[in-house]
């Protein structure tokens, strides 16, 4: 804050001077502020998440200090579910499907300068979220291959307090929103998980293989591929190749697995809130495979990626 020994009229003057300064921050600076806030602010609060078919409420305790960022998340409704993350890595979880702990190393660093190549950033205005003044940033895609976002950033700290994901037909797909937040240092007890939070087992090293045969012929511009790995997703299941792609904000994962006996599959498109899944059968040297693209991208984008595989079965080959 501006430090000044001011009279009443001085305060008014200060307010007049500050507000143009606040507005002068462009959308890119707001975005950078959001990235910085995560590593600098300690806070606790409550938020909800809503998408088609699901509405859930959560508590979070977030501590940023010299040791990095430690977060404890507790789902407040339904069966108690708890995660503790340190610098993004899961330390313990009360329910977690992934046996591999695979992180899909696609670049996830949110880089405002790079993002502006694929999204047009704009300051839409100001409003209030969780009883705090916020500034609304629009991220509109410059092409048809990704969704639009509205980010509501805390004026004081830059923290993301609300986010909307909007599709190409202007339909809201997902809403994330804090209902209250307190900025204060946290004690160790507050970050201590309950007994139901189970430490993740060590996982064997992921096998890196030559997956050049499974590279789609087309991916949307700006998306960068992570390392492809082959592993089983669960005990007693066949191996699956998976590879993550990201444009710095949106993300999708490619899964390819052989179609064995009893593995019946058709070409398919499924939508779960903001996430789409598109399956295509592939044929390589007489062996059937199922390639599935899963991510927060428009169905048409996922379809186009799926259609670009060199080994698509005849009926889908056009």
């Amino acid at each position, binding site marked *: 804050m501006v430090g000044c020994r001011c009279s009443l009229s001085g305060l008014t003057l200060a307010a007049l001077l500050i507000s143009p300064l606040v507005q002068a921050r462009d959308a890119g600076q707001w975005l950078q502020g*959001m990235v910085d*806030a995560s590593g600098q602010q300690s806070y606790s609060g409550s*938020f909800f*998440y809503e*998408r*088609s078919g699901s509405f*859930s409420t*959560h508590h*979070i305790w977030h501590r940023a200090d010299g040791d990095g960022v430690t977060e404890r*998340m507790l*789902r407040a409704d339904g069966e108690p*579910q708890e*995660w503790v*993350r340190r610098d*993004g890595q*899961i330390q313990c979880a009360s329910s*977690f*499907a*992934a046996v591999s702990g695979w*992180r*899909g190393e696609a670049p996830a660093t*949110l880089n405002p300068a790079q993002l502006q190549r694929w999204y047009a950033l704009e300051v839409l205005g100001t409003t209030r979220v969780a009883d705090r003044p916020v500034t609304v940033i629009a991220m*509109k895609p410059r*092409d048809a*291959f990704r969704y*639009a976002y*509205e980010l509501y950033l805390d004026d004081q700290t830059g923290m*993301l307090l609300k986010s*909307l994901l*909007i599709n*190409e*037909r202007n339909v*809201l*797909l*997902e809403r*994330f929103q804090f209902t209250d937040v307190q900025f204060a240092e946290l004690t160790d007890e507050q970050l201590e998980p309950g007994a139901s939070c189970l430490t993740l087992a060590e996982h064997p090293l992921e096998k890196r293989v030559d997956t050049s045969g499974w590279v789609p012929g087309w991916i949307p511009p700006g998306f960068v591929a992570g390392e492809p790995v082959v592993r089983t*997703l*669960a005990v007693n299941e066949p191996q699956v190749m998976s590879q993550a792609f990201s444009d710095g904000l949106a*993300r*999708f*994962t490619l*899964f390819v697995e052989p179609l064995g006996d009893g*593995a019946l599959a*058709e*070409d*398919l*498109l*499924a*939508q*779960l*809130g903001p*996430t789409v*899944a598109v*399956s295509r059968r592939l044929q390589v040297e007489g062996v059937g495979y199922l390639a*599935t693209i*899963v991510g927060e991208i428009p*169905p*048409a984008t996922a*379809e186009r990626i799926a*259609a670009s595989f060199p080994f698509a079965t005849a009926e889908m080959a056009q």
Partner: protein
Amino acid sequence: MRSEVLQESLSALMDNEADELEVRRVLQAAEQDPALRSTWSRYQVARAVMHKEPWQGAVDLSAGIAAALRDEPELQMAPAPADVKPVSTIWRNLGRVAVAASVTLAVLVGVRMVNQGDAPGGAQMTAGTMTAPSMLQANPAARSGAVLAGYSQAGNAGAEPLAPAQAPSAWHEQRIGRYLREHAESSAQMASPQLIPYARAASMEGR
């Protein structure tokens, strides 16, 4: 409308065995009858407990189902019971399946399956055909509420049909579920400034 008949229709609706006529009958009656609405609500809670579905008893489904049915063509009523031919039973059954499937997929699971032929735009969609999305400023509350209830898509069925037509195999359904969670959970492990990937993953737990 006699209440026994309504109760029967309501039971059929809850068992996903109601045909369109029955669905309309219940909706119409529920509009005027708070007691019936509360019965419906109790049935939903009971079913949720039986099926262990995470269920929000406070959500009133009737508006959403009415919206899904509103744009469908009016039912062709048989002139008189005596004239009902055997073939009409088949059509009744088809309607029954279609209504039940759209309701369960959209509400209970949250996954919408789309027939490949009906996918909007398809792979031909290019940057040129796209109109830049303008932000939701006009009336976000009304719009989002409808969408997230899972029904607005059914409302403009011409644009993007909700196609329960060909159910995927059990194996494929299991794989899609696994992939969705795997994708969400790996996304949630990135050192991201956002909590949204975590929230997405958490919203898939317990399914």
